[in-house]
């Protein structure tokens, strides 16, 4: 139902013309063009890519700056807030589907491709290949590698992310109860835990790549491992950046018990990233 209140429908906020979207389009054009050149080994591509990144950052700062200004300036009321929440919800749904594509790849590789490649039909092509998971080599025998161990760093990382969900919820309570110190501390702890997660993941990657010979080309196991955890890692990075912005806004005195959509959106995103990690831990590391 269309939610209405005395501030709602009558004054729904329609922003004035803005140059940020076009700048964002220029940025993505540079990123796309630069990336296409860069992956084909053209030096120019990296420069175009960097330019696109800079423009995108400028756009994000400007655009979010405008939005934050409008929010603080009291331009948003109940109906706008509801729009934002629906928007964030659908955005997260699209992210779920993105991860779905890569999880589908993992399940397909394990449940369909692997038994097929190990079957009698393929003995002629890959006589030495044995269909076990995690794979020890690719079918067309690359160097042997070691699979990841779940109960070392990954388990610690699981603990870290779960703790960060707790600290974030604790911060949320602080916000709702008007305890600003608790809010600030909880957010800070969450950000530190997020960055800690990323550091540990970097260490894990480094060890896997060098000591375990587990690379992107290391067969069905290596590629699904890096693509899924890598995509997740990018989301942790983005989530941490969002939380950092929210934290800086809290330090400036933004948000109160009623108006704190940005905090909620960041929290939803963080919990989403958390849940994805639990699935990863089960399906990539444990099983």
């Amino acid at each position, binding site marked *: 139902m269309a939610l209405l209140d005395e501030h709602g429908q009558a004054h729904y906020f329609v922003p004035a013309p*803005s*140059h940020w979207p076009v700048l964002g389009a220029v940025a993505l054009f540079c990123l796309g063009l630069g990336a296409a050149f860069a992956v084909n080994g053209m030096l120019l591509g990296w420069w175009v890519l960097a330019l696109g990144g800079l423009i995108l950052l400028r756009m994000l700062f400007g655009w979010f700056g405008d939005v934050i200004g409008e929010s603080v300036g009291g331009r948003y009321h109940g109906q706008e807030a509801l729009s934002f929440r629906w928007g964030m919800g659908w955005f997260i749904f699209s992210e779920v589907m993105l991860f779905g594509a890569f999880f589908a790849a993992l399940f*397909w590789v394990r449940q369909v491709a692997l038994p097929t490649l190990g079957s009698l039909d393929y003995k002629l092509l890959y006589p030495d290949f044995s269909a076990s998971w995690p794979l020890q080599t690719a079918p067309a025998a690359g160097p042997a590698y070691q699979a990841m161990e779940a109960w070392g760093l990954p388990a610690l990382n699981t603990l870290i992310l779960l703790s960060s969900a707790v600290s974030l919820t604790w911060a949320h309570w602080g916000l709702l109860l008007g305890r600003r110190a608790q809010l600030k501390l909880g957010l800070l702890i969450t950000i530190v835990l997020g960055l800690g997660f990323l550091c540990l993941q970097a260490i894990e990657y480094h060890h896997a790549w060098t000591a375990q010979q587990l690379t992107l080309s290391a067969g069905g196991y290596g590629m699904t491992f890096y693509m899924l955890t890598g995509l997740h890692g990018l989301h942790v990075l983005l989530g941490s950046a969002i939380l950092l912005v929210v934290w800086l806004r809290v330090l400036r005195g933004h948000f109160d018990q009623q108006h704190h959509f940005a905090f909620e959106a960041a929290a939803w995103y963080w919990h989403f990233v958390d849940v994805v990690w639990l699935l990863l831990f089960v399906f990539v590391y444990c099983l």
Partner: protein
Amino acid sequence: MAIAGLAAVPQQSHRPHGWRRWLFATNHKDIGSLYLWFAFCMFLVGGVLALCIRAELFRPGLQFFQPELFNQLTTLHGLIMVFGAIMPAFTGLANWMLPLMIGAPDMAFARMNNWSFWLLPPAMALLLLSFVVPGGAAAAGWTLYAPLSVQLGMGMDLTIFAIHILGVSSIMGAINIVVTIINLRAPGMGMMKMPMFAWASLITAYLIIAVMPVLAGAVTMVLTDRHFGTHFFNAAGGGDPILYQHVFWFFGHPEVYIMALPAFGIVSQVIPTFARKPLFGYTSMVYATSSIGVLSFMVWAHHMFVTGMPATAQLFFMYATMLIAVPTGVKVFNWIATMWEGSMSFETPMLFAIGFILLFTIGGLSGVTLSVAAVDVQLHGSYYVVAHFHYVLVAGALFSLFSAVYYWFPKMTGRMYVERLGQLHFWWSLLWFNVTFFPMHFLGLAGMPRRIPDYALQFTQFNQIASVGAFMFGLGQLIFLVNILYSLRHGKTAAQQPWEGGNTLEWRLPTPAPYHSFSEAPQLDVAENGVVVAMQGGKHG
């Protein structure tokens, strides 16, 4: 440039002028016009590529293009028509009409709306640019199947990044549509009363949000296979080329409905107007649309019957596909029942809507034929498939778009299009469309493969008929362009309610629609399909 008729619009508050108006737009009508014009330009570009294909296929042997270039033409024709023409055109119409039809002041996220649009030109630029890079454009067909897509030159990389950008654009556009419909309806415009066009746009947007990320995932895996050493689609590295097809078609089949459902919505507005009767079976229309939205996720592997999947899977996907004929049949039945004993008149929008019903049904029936796994084994990859999807995409999606543009042109611009030219455009398109695509059924049944620049001698005559038809059909679209350009300046002034039977909310607005409409929401009493019974208040400007 005269974009959707602005001469007659009264001056409104804070409206930018000149190029800033279009580049920095936050007005849903401006952004809608941008979408529509952009889509039409891309329709012409994609159309020229199609004519290149038909020119080459006029005679057996190689005339104009080497096979490599021919493959690039078919690939880019498909990608441009799907992502550059049809999807943006529907998004443009949704932008223009949804706020007017549900009583919203604008789209929910007006700035993001502009970003959604302005991402399209860069993405299409990347696609077209790929023609001139070493190795040429992507040549793997619009489906970009591995392993071809893994092996091609850097045109493929440009295509991959273009698709990423298009994905960002359409996901944002879709979120905007969903949130606008959920949250910005005027009081009284209940979900089970809003126009079918709004329902169709809602389900379509939901499909876009669900499957565009999956396509992004698929092409990302192609990218990492190409440049970062993964082997998702290479058995020697532990992957599987069939995996690509599954991921792609999990996107690709709902994508078919992304291009069909808005058409259903448009026809469900046009038919009642010109039959001067309420839409028959509104509630069943809503449920039929929703169930198509659900079923579309469960049928993707019918595109893959010849990949050697188990018989159980073939049977499942075959029956699930046939099931879609049920809600689709409900719709066709309802449209015909709406016309039954109606007081019909046959202005151009109605002609295109009726043409849509007729030809889309033919395309739907050839779809049921293809859904039979045993038959599909024969017809897969043949011109029968080409005939089938052009019946649903050209006579389906495109005809509905023409219907919509003629239908809402007076409300958008304040002027009437030239009816005689509109009628000519319809009959011309109807005739030459069938001349082009009907023979392709026979070609496919006789075994002519698609995406091949040369063919055996016995296919010559039907190919020549199809090629003549294609050029004539293409020529006919200039009638449309001339009609629009002429009517923007010289068309007769339109009444507030140019169609006697038009009784949804947009016809309650002045003509042309004011720059800012419903800045204060009206109080509505609405019957099914958005028919306004009574309206109070509602400020503009």
